[in-house]
Structures are given as structure tokens and as C-alpha cells.
């Protein structure tokens, strides 16, 4: 029994190979199950539309001069590592294949710039930071990476490499932000990262390492800073619980490479007394006696030591120095000048006097700085990172170039409108709200994005009642209705009543009713609804949160330094979803763990979270989603990372919230806390989940999930998902890599287990339209980003169970009459494949000439109709229909399109006739020249032959330009005029202009003239010549016969075209020879 099943199983696997093997192998029974995985769905592809205009937070910068150029690594807070070999002109992402994209520290080995270390997990611990997974090393300049441990570090603030021994590396690990952990402190490796020792740790489980500095002369002399910190969903502390409370933070010194440490006495030798919060310390690279320390304490300030750290003196304590220490705590000392210090802060501040005074460096950068690199060869050349991206200065920070090539934008949400092409709307962390194009001729450049409102952006929507307006907000529910023409923004945030405080989340939910155009919701602790664009708000709920007063003490949040920016505002509504099936049913999720539902438009509410078995209490409801298909069905996603639990929790109810089942979690292969669950607009079982580490897709209601990695989509946080219902595009808001679009998800709707078991099959697509081919795009240099457009051809989608490796695979396009129109190379990958067909007939056969005729290198696009795509894969043949229609935006109708096609094909035919004529001339000349060459020089027949040859060459020179050499000759003959006319007709797919039609007639006339001239000449001259040749026993000169006018491989005859039109129109259609005559 065991043997039989083994043989059967092996046979199944073998046969799966045989089907793709050559040499007559037959298709065989497919295996019973196909694992639904990333390889199956990722062939859908995805495109990043940016933008890099606003970019996103840079947490770490490392650079070096290599081969005279500046090598830069930019570490994004949540968008990976970007490498530039040219000082920032171009960047490429080099960390995308790793499981996390949040970067805390980057270090280039001073002994070998090919070696680079990356510590994951940002150390600027704001509310929205991501979560890292350890330390990585690349020995080949970022091409390949090895995970080198510190798995549980969560975040790493600095990496220091011993300049005299590359195997000795220190990693400063603040550690987990949301929970206790022993895996924090200062780590050291002496074997290049194979093993690590924790050489300095805090006295409690919330104290890690915030900074380290190494004596530039003596690598064993180190200072390290320990930092006690903790964030919860509703509060934060840097240092102890309050300004005077005990804290684990402290400053430590080692003289033996970290074997032993001595705490530097607080309150002595010029240092302030404890408690401390976040501390930073750095040696001056050019003078190891000078050390600077920034200490967050009850009297936060910069301190300087001129004796290597024995004694200290307080220096600057301006607001720029002490502002938000958890977010700004890095000192960068000019490597050539120990008295010049930069501190990234709200502004990048700089001191030229050893820290006695600081001023803003100036310039037009975004602000909220985090890191800076100073070029040791030219200290005026600095590269810095802030909340708005990467900035380059050549005058020490007074003026800045923005790196407009880093699409690391951190969207919170995205929505779409119904324009064509549609626009996307979304708000970003510290980067306002933007509206961008989903498609634009030449690419979606940074300039195709429009900024509205300001602040930190979150939800944003077009006003469905008036597309001149958009709703947008900044932090804490500050919603405005923005006029996109006048750019005024009317504040419409609901206000508190008497003796009342409204609690709006940092990321306050705004929701548009799917049932009532223009009805809008916003949530504080109460749910508000407006039906008049915010002119008035109805309060349609009681407090839907737990209203726990312990979670409402934000005025005391911050630890040593109070920091109450609304980022910690808690016990708020966080997600809202009105049922598309019934506007009276509204679901609400709160950040403190309530799932509330009303079935009477808000009169009564029920908290159903208690019905979710296995869900820990107080879990942050990151998403509620009412089903489009069933009023009793809803989905909810919970995010518990604020409790240190990084697992996704996604549930579904089919009975209005009475019972729930978990449909997505670690058991199904999902990674990272869940931000969003989205149901497809067509197929109820097609679900999408966005987590902190990517996008997952299920085609069977959550039974199986596959990660989406198509189009090089990185493992970045997916915080919102929306489906454009007309185009069936899936639009993703990533928090770190901008907006991505998966064009046309229709194929996913047709995927089933049965289909996955097939060797190959076509998948449905959205209706194909012949998008108007706009022209656009202009050189912007290389230091810029532009987003990809959707394919402009007809996208054909199919599935293959295995990669096609042996023998031909091709796709043929057949016209409505079944005749071949084109053959296109097929894609070969496993899973979903996509190819794009230009929808063009073959180009005309153009006579040879001095230069290429560019317009006539293309055939016109086929006319609308039902075409067939035929996939041939080995011996197997698959077919599907392609229903091709006009662009929705076209201002011409099908008759106009036919007129254009007919006109283009008439010129197409003329090119063919012209080619035949030129072939005849060339053929006749060759024969005449050859015969002449065989005759004595003074033979009269030879002269006749030469004369004939040169006279017909004169005719050829009337037809085609013949001047060679590559200059701009400006030589235009009949062929070139016809090419220009053809280009003009092809430039617009509506009815050609009258003068264009007349031009066809004129050029036809000219072609007839030369044809007649050739015929007359041959009729007159050849009989006598051929008689002479015959007398000498030589073969006669016979012009080559008429050739077919179009390339045989993929031509459409007039009958083909007539049949296509007839099929499309459902009636007989006969293309007239003169297209100006109506049929």
C-alpha cells in the first residue's frame, strides 16, 4: 500500500515535469493540489507611482568617497536601503528582498567600502515606527545580504566598526519599543558578526542602548549611552514615568573594548544629575580629547569635554537642542573641525563655536532631521535625512538639493475617484495630503502630484458630490474641505460641547457613505455624520470607546520631556464602515478594542467584540469592513503591536457579529500586524490583507493566503487598499514606498483550485479598450522619479502551473474571421503570466531607401471587435476571446475609427504598391547591369542596357530618398511624403481630415505617374533590348512580378477588415475603395 501510493505520488511529480519537457512528451494527469503561493499570483505585476515629490522619512545616512565619487546609503524609516554610486543622482533599492524595510543604522566599513552593515528597526521611536528583525551585512556593496543575528533587537540605533579590525563591530540596540525585553543594550562581535556578546545592558527590561562613540585614536576606548524608554498605545516615556522618576538611562565608559564599563558619574564633573532620558555622545573625529554629549534630563542641554570625558561643561540648551529628544538625538561633529557640530532637530542646527551657540543651518528643506553625513574631504558637502527625505548641500547646509528620486513616501491611506484616468488621494506621515495621477503620457512624474492641506496627512477623498472639492485632514481629526481650484481649505472639524473634550485619534477615520453620495463620517469617541459637506454634523453615537481614564493622560506623556502632539490620543474611534447593502448598518472599531455595530443608523449600538473568541482584550481595531455582498457579513482586523504582539489577527463574521472566525494569522503564513482587510468588489471570496510586512491575497475566503511580490513589490507596510471599480485596479497605500497599483485584478476572480491544477489556462481580464496614446514626457535628468503607466496594449493574462522551459510557446492573435493578425512572444513564468499586445496590424512593406521611414514602422491599430488569442504551448493549444473596444474618452465613434483605419490601410497598400514598383526597378536594373557587364564595352546593346538602367534609376530617385551618409539631408520623395501623411493619419484615430484624404489622392496620383512612367519606359525600351539579348543568347530582362502589398506573416486583407467590421457591427460591412464614400 505504501509502495503504491509512493509510486503514484512520484508519477504525479514526474508527469508534472514531463509536460514541460521536450521530445514528444504528453501532457499527463495533474497533481491533486497546487500550493497557492507568491509565485502563482505575482505575475500580475505592480507598478509604483510614487511619489518621490514628498518622499518620506530618512532615519540613517552613511556615505564615503569611492573612486572620486560619493557612495551613499540612505536608510528609510520604513522603505528600505537605497544606494547611490554617484552622490545621489541616482538611487536603487538594495534591501528589498529582506523581510523588513525599517532601517535604524547603516555603517560602511572604513577599511573596505564594499562591506556595509545595516541595523533594522528605526530608533526614532515615534508612534508610527515599524519593527526590525536584526542586523545584516553585505560584503558586495549591497547586492546580497546575510542576516547576522540580533533577531530580537527590534531596533538598532548605531553600528560602529573598528577601523583597525573589520571583524570587530559594535551594535547599539535600544531594543523593543512596545514591550520588555532582555535583548537590548550594546552588543559586540569580534568575528565579523558570526557571534555577538551583550557587553553592556541596562538595569531593567526597558533600558537599551541609544548611542555609542569610539575614540578616533584608540578603538578600545568607548562611551555608550543607555536609554530607558517605552511606548504604549496611549502614552510614551523617554526616561522614567515622569520628569523626576527613576530611569535606567546613563552614560558609560570602557577603556578595554567593552570588557568592563564604568558609569560616568551623573551630577559630578560638570554633568547634570539624574534622572536622564535619551543621551547621545560623540568624539570629535579630529581631536579625541573633545567629546560632546547631549543629555535629556530635567535640565536638558549639550555638554562638552576637552579632556576626553573627565570633566564637562554645559553648552547650548536652546529649544532646538532640547526639543523632542526621543525623535532628535544625534550629534555630528565636522571631521575636520572639532568646534563645528550639527544636531539634526526640527531644523538642522549648527554650531561653529564648539557648542556655545547654535543656529538653524537654513535653506528650504522639509525639517524634522535625523541624520547627517559630512564629507571629510570637503566638509561643506553634507547629506542629511529628515521627515521629507534626503537632502544634499554643498555649502554646509545653508541651501539644499532635494533628492527627488526616493519614492519612500509613507502613506497612511489611499482613495480613488472616477476620473479617467483616475486619480489617487492619500495622506502621509508628516507630509501632508497629495493627489496624483494613475496614468500620464510619458510617465507619472513628481510634478503629476498635487498637494492639499498640510501637516501629517491621513484619510483623503474626492467629494463625490462635487469633484472640485476633496476632503483631507491633518493629525487629530483636523478635517477640511479643500477647493482644488482656489485651494482654500475650510476647517470643518466637529467641535466639542460644553465642558467636553473630543478625542480624535492621530489617524482619525473619515468615511464616505457607499449609499448616499456626499454623506461623510468622522470619528472622535463619538461618531459624527454630515450630509451637507460639513456645514453641520450629527452626533450619531454615544462614546463608543471604553473611555478608560487611565488611557487619557496624554498631557503627562513623554517621560522626562512632555510630548503631547496628539500622537498618543487614545480611546478613540479608529475605523468606520457603513454597509454598502444597508446604510442603516454601520460598523465602528476603536483603538482600545471595541467593535460596535448599529443596525438603525446610529440610534442603538452593540459592542460585539466579546464574541470574538481568542482575541486578547483591548486589541486595537485597525480595520472594520462591512461586506458588499451580505449585510450580516463583516471583517475586522486587529493590531496588537502596541502590546508587543506582532501577529496579524483578522476575523470574519457572517451573522452580524454574533460569531467570528479567524481567517488570517501566522498559521496561514501571514507576517506582521494587520492594518487592513479588504473584500473584492466582485468576488466575495477574494480578500486582501495588508500587514506591516506586505500584502497577502486569498482567493478562497481566507482558507489559503499568498504573499504578493509582483513587480518587485517590497516587503513594506500596506496600510490601506482600495479597488478602482471601473478599472478593477487594486491600489495600495504603503507606508514607506508610496502608492502601488496592481492593474486589473480580474484574473484573480477567475482563479480556483481547479484552475490551479491545470497545466495552462487563460484568465479573464477587464474589457480591452484602445487607450488613446497620448504623447508626453520631457527630459528631467536622472535625479528624479517617475511612476510607470499601465500597459497601453491589450493585456492578455494566462496561467501556467510550471515555468515553461522547453520548446516554443507563443501567442497568436486571430482576427474576427480567424485569420492571423500578429504573433507575440509569450511570457514563461510559473503562475499568472501577462503579455501586452499592441493591437496593431503588421506595418506596411516599405521600399528600401537611404533612411528608415519611422511612421510606417507601425501598422494602424485594429478596429474594434472580437479577436482571439491562441496560446500554443508544446502540443497544447488554448484560446480566449479578446473583446476590443474604443477608449471611453474618445470623441469619435466607430464609423470615424473605421474611416481612419481605412485611410491608413489605403496608404499601407500604397506603400506595398510602391515597394513592388521599387523592387521591379531594382530587379530590372540588376538584370540589365549584369547583362551589360557581360558585353564588350563598345557594344551598342551594352549602351542600351546602361541607358535603360540609368533611366529607370531616375524613376527610382523620384520615389525614394537615396542620399546616404547619415546627415540631415532633408531629401523627400514620394516615399517620405507618404510616410509623413501616414504618420499624420495614424496620429489621431478619429476621422481623417479632408485635406489628408486629398493628400492620399494626390500621392496616389503621383505613384500612378511613376508607375506609368516605368511601364511606358519598359514597354518602349525592353522589346528591342530583349531582342538584342536573345540574338546573343542572353536571358531577357523581365521585371519581377507584382508582390503582395503587405507582409505575409501578419497581414490583414481587405476581406479581413470587412469581416472584422461586419462581426463587430453585427451586419454586413463593405469597405469602399474610396473611404470618403459612405458605405
Amino acid at each position, binding site marked *: 500500500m505504501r509502495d503504491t501510493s509512493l509510486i503514484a*505520488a*512520484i508519477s504525479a*511529480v*514526474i508527469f508534472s*515535469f*514531463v509536460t514541460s*519537457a*521536450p521530445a514528444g*512528451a504528453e501532457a499527463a494527469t495533474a497533481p491533486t493540489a497546487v500550493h497557492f*503561493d*507568491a*509565485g*502563482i499570483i*505575482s*505575475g500580475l505585476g505592480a507598478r509604483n507611482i510614487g511619489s518621490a515629490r514628498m518622499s518620506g522619512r530618512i532615519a540613517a545616512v552613511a556615505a564615503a568617497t569611492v*573612486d572620486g*565619487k560619493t557612495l551613499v546609503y540612505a536608510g528609510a524609516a520604513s522603505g528600505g536601503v537605497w544606494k547611490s*554610486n554617484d552622490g545621489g543622482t541616482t538611487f536603487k533599492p538594495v534591501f528589498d528582498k529582506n523581510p523588513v524595510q525599517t532601517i535604524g543604522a547603516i555603517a560602511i566599513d572604513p577599511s573596505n567600502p564594499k562591506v556595509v552593515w545595516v541595523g533594522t528597526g528605526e530608533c526614532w521611536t515615534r508612534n508610527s515606527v515599524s519593527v526590525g528583525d536584526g542586523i545584516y551585512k553585505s560584503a*558586495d556593496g549591497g*547586492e546580497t545580504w546575510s542576516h547576522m543575528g540580533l533577531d530580537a533587537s527590534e531596533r538598532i540605533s548605531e553600528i560602529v566598526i573598528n577601523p583597525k579590525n573589520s571583524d570587530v563591530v559594535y551594535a547599539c540596540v535600544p531594543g523593543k519599543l512596545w514591550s520588555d525585553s532582555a535583548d537590548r543594550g550594546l552588543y559586540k562581535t569580534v568575528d565579523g558578526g558570526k557571534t555577538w556578546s551583550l557587553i553592556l545592558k541596562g538595569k531593567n527590561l526597558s533600558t537599551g542602548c541609544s548611542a555609542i562613540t569610539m575614540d578616533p585614536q584608540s578603538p578600545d576606548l568607548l562611551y555608550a549611552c543607555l536609554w530607558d524608554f517605552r511606548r504604549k498605545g496611549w502614552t510614551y516615556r523617554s526616561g522614567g514615568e515622569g520628569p523626576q522618576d527613576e530611569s535606567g538611562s546613563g552614560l558609560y565608559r570602557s577603556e578595554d573594548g567593552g570588557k568592563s564599563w564604568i558609569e560616568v558619574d551623573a551630577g559630578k564633573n560638570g554633568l547634570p544629575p539624574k534622572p536622564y532620558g535619551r543621551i547621545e555622545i560623540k568624539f570629535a573625529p579630529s581631536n579625541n580629547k573633545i567629546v560632546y554629549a547631549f543629555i535629556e534630563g530635567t535640565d536638558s542641554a549639550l555638554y562638552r569635554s576637552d579632556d576626553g570625558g573627565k570633566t564637562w561643561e554645559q553648552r547650548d540648551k536652546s529649544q532646538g537642542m532640547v526639543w523632542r529628544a526621543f525623535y532628535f538625538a544625534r550629534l555630528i561633529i565636522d571631521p575636520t573641525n572639532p568646534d563645528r557640530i550639527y544636531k539634526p532637530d526640527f531644523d538642522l542646527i549648527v554650531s561653529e563655536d564648539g557648542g556655545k551657540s547654535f543656529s538653524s543651518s537654513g535653506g528650504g528643506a522639509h525639517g524634522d532631521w535625523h541624520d547627517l553625513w559630512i564629507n571629510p574631504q570637503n566638509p561643506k558637502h553634507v547629506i542629511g535625512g529628515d521627515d521629507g527625505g534626503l537632502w544634499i548641500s554643498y555649502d554646509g547646509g545653508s541651501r539644499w538639493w532635494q533628492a527627488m528620486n526616493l519614492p519612500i513616501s509613507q502613506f497612511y491611506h489611499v482613495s480613488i475617484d472616477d476620473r479617467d484616468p483616475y486619480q489617487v488621494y492619500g495622506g502621509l506621515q508628516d507630509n501632508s495630503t497629495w493627489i496624483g495621477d494613475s496614468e500620464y503620457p510619458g510617465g507619472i512624474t513628481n510634478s503629476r502630484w498635487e498637494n492639499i492641506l498640510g501637516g501629517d496627512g491621513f484619510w483623503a477623498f474626492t467629494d463625490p458630490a462635487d469633484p472640485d472639492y476633496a476632503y483631507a485632514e491633518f493629525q487629530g481629526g483636523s478635517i477640511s474641505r479643500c477647493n482644488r481650484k482656489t485651494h482654500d481649505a475650510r476647517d470643518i472639524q466637529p467641535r466639542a460641547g460644553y465642558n467636553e473634550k473630543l478625542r480624535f485619534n492621530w489617524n482619525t477615520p473619515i468615511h464616505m457613505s457607499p449609499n448616499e453620495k456626499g454623506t461623510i463620517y468622522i470619528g472622535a469617541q463619538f461618531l459624527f455624520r454630515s450630509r451637507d459637506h460639513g456645514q453641520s454634523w450629527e452626533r450619531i453615537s454615544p462614546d463608543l470607546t471604553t473611555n478608560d481614564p487611565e488611557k487619557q493622560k496624554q498631557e503627562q506623556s513623554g517621560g522626562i520631556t512632555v510630548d503631547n502632539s496628539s500622537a498618543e490620543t487614545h480611546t478613540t474611534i479608529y475605523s468606520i464602515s457603513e454597509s454598502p447593502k444597508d446604510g442603516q448598518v454601520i460598523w465602528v472599531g476603536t483603538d482600545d478594542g471595541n467593535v460596535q455595530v448599529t443596525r438603525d443608523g446610529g440610534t442603538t449600538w452593540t459592542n460585539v467584540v466579546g464574541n470574538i473568541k481568542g482575541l486578547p482584550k483591548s486589541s486595537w481595531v485597525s480595520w472594520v469592513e462591512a461586506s458588499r455582498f451580505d449585510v450580516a457579513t463583516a471583517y475586522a482586523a486587529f493590531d496588537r503591536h502596541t502590546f508587543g504582539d506582532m501577529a496579524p489577527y483578522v476575523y470574519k463574521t457572517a451573522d452580524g457579529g454574533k460569531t467570528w472566525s479567524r481567517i488570517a494569522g501566522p498559521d496561514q503564513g501571514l507576517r506582521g500586524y494587520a492594518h487592513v482587510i479588504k473584500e473584492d468588489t466582485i468576488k466575495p471570496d477574494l480578500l486582501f490583507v495588508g500587514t506591516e510586512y506586505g500584502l497577502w491575497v486569498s482567493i478562497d475566503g481566507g482558507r489559503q493566503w499568498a504573499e504578493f*511580490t509582483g513587480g*518587485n513589490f517590497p516587503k513594506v507596510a500596506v496600510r490601506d487598499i482600495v479597488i478602482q471599480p471601473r478599472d478593477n485596479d487594486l491600489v495600495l497605500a504603503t507606508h514607506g514606498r508610496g502608492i502601488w497599483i496592481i492593474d486589473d485584478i480580474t484574473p484573480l476572480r477567475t482563479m480556483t483550485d481547479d484552475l490551479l491544477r491545470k497545466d495552462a489556462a487563460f484568465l479573464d481580464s477587464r474589457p480591452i479598450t484602445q*487607450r488613446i*496614446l497620448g504623447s508626453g514626457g520631457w527630459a528631467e535628468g536622472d535625479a528624479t522619479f517617475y511612476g510607470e503607466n499601465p*500597459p*497601453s*496594449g491589450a493585456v492578455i493574462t494566462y496561467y501556467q502551473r510550471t*515555468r*515553461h*522551459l*522547453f*520548446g*516554443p*510557446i*507563443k501567442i497568436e492573435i486571430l482576427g474576427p474571421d480567424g485569420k492571423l493578425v500578429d504573433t*507575440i*512572444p509569450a511570457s*514563461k*513564468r*510559473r*503562475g499568472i503570466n501577462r503579455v*501586452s499586445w*499592441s*493591437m496593431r496590424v*503588421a506595418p506596411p512593406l*516599405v521600399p*528600401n*531607401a*537611404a*533612411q*528608415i521611414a519611422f511612421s*510606417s*514602422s*507601425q501598422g494602424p491599430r485594429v478596429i474594434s471587435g472580437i479577436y482571439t488569442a491562441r496560446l500554443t504551448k508544446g502540443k497544447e493549444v488554448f484560446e480566449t476571446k479578446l473583446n476590443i473596444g474604443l477608449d471611453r474618452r474618445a470623441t469619435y465613434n466607430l464609423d470615424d475609427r473605421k474611416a481612419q483605419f481605412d485611410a491608413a490601410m489605403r496608404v499601407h497598400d500604397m506603400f506595398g504598391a510602391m515597394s513592388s514598383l521599387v523592387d521591379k526597378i531594382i530587379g530590372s536594373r540588376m538584370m540589365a547591369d549584369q547583362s551589360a557587364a557581360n558585353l564588350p564595352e563598345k557594344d551598342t546593346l551594352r549602351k542600351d542596357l546602361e541607358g535603360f538602367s540609368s533611366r529607370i534609376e531616375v524613376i527610382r530617385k523620384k520615389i525614394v530618398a537615396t*542620399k*546616404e*551618409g*547619415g*546627415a540631415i*539631408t532633408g531629401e523627400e520623395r514620394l516615399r517620405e511624403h507618404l510616410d509623413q501623411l501616414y504618420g499624420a493619419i495614424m496620429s489621431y484615430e478619429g476621422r481623417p481630415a479632408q485635406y489628408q484624404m486629398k493628400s492620399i489622392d494626390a500621392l496616389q496620383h503621383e505613384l500612378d505617374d511613376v508607375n506609368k512612367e516605368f511601364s511606358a519606359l519598359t514597354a518602349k525600351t525592353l522589346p528591342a533590348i530583349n531582342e538584342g539579348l536573345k540574338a546573343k543568347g542572353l536571358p531577357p530582362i523581365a521585371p519581377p512580378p507584382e508582390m503582395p502589398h503587405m507582409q505575409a506573416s501578419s497581414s490583414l486583407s481587405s476581406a479581413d477588415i470587412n469581416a472584422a467590421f461586419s462581426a463587430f457591427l453585427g451586419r454586413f460591412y463593405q469597405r469602399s475603395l474610396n473611404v470618403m464614400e459612405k458605405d
Partner: protein
Amino acid sequence: MLIRRGLLAALLLFVAAHARAFTVDELIAKNIEAKGGLDKIRAIRTLRTSGQMRVGGGGFSLDLAYTMMAQRPAMIRTEASIQGLTAVTAYDGSIGWQLQPFQGRRDPDKMSADDMKGLKLSADMEGPLVDYKAKGHKIDYLGTEDVDGTAAHKLKISLKEGDIRYVYLDPDYFLEIRIVDQIKIRGVEIEQETDLGDYEQVNGVYLPFSIESGPKGGPKGQKITIVKAEANVDLNDALFHFPAAPAAVSK
């Protein structure tokens, strides 16, 4: 034979869910065996392939007739024709040259040492994996990496002249399915990605009949489909040498 190899691969997969780690030399041996064996590879002295090259994508594309001729030890010539005009790139073992006729020029131009790097690499008919040590290349095995849903074996070839080529081998048949070249042109690294497929036997050696290239990670803007391949045809050396007079176009 292939079916037998398929059986072996299938058994391996069946017994152990994860492929065992290979050495560089094991993978190269499997690749050579999969192609048909070293003897058969070496028996091919010249090669002429022809077919179609489609350039562009989406709404516009150009179809050109394509021919490639190669001859040992290191000669190559490619031709792409449209409207009776033929562009040529060629390398004869020392000189690389090209002819770009589309704007009326018929004179060949010599290529710089950097510009001919790719051509020179292609002129190694058997590819850099065969006899890589003798050729002065260094190869590292970097484990498996996803190539469009296939966990392919990744080899890094540090070429003798300093550039890098990554080769991805199909995990079941060990044939190349992707090549990524990192070539420095005037000090700037250019990355080119080429997908290979539609393998067919020519004189007992499996050759890719589908060659699709583009910038790394981007759309493959150049797709070559081979229709005919002939081994050991007589090729005139003059085809590869820089022409004294304007180049003659081959049939």
C-alpha cells in the same frame, strides 16, 4: 534523458522538501549535462541563429529580422533588419564594431573597449560557466533566489575583466533561466537582465530560443525569438572583422 533527469529531480524534491546545498562545480556540471554534455557543446564550432526581434512594448513595438552568427574562438556578429536596412554589431576577438544605418549612414564605427564588453562576453559561445577557471573567472554559489515564482540557483560570476554576471539556473533542469550583467561603462555600472527560455536542441545541445532583455527589474523591451538555428555552418571570417569598405549585409 531529460525525463530521467526529471525523475531524479522529482525524487529529490519528493524525499526532501528543500533542495540540498550544491557546490559551484556540481551546479556547473549539472548545467553542462543538461545542455547535452561537454563533448556536444565543444562540437559546435559555429552557430547561426535567425528569427525575429521585437523592440518596445505596450502600444508601440518594432519588429526586426534578427540574425546572430558566432564562431570559435570568440567571434560574434548580430544583425537586425527593418525596411531593408540592417544594423550590425560584431566582434572578431579583438575589435568590436557596429553599423547603424537607420539614419542613412552606411559606414561601420569601431566600439570603445567598454562599449564592446557585452559583445565580447556573448562571443564566448559556450558561456562563461564552461572552463571558468581556465578563463580566469571566479564563481560563487549564492543559494536560491526567486525568479518569477521559481526558486532558482544563483551563481555569481566575477569575470576576469572585472565585471559581474549573475546566472540563475532552473532548479529542476539546471538550465539558465535568467542572467543579470553588471557591466561598468566609463566607470558607471549598467545592469541588464536577460530571461532565457524555449530551449531546443541544436546538434545535441539545448539552446534558448527565447531571449528577452531589459534593464534589471524593468520590462523586457527587447524580445528575440529564434526560428532557425544551425550549427557548424561555414561562416566567412570577414563577417566578423571590421570592414575595410562599407559592410556587406549577409543573406
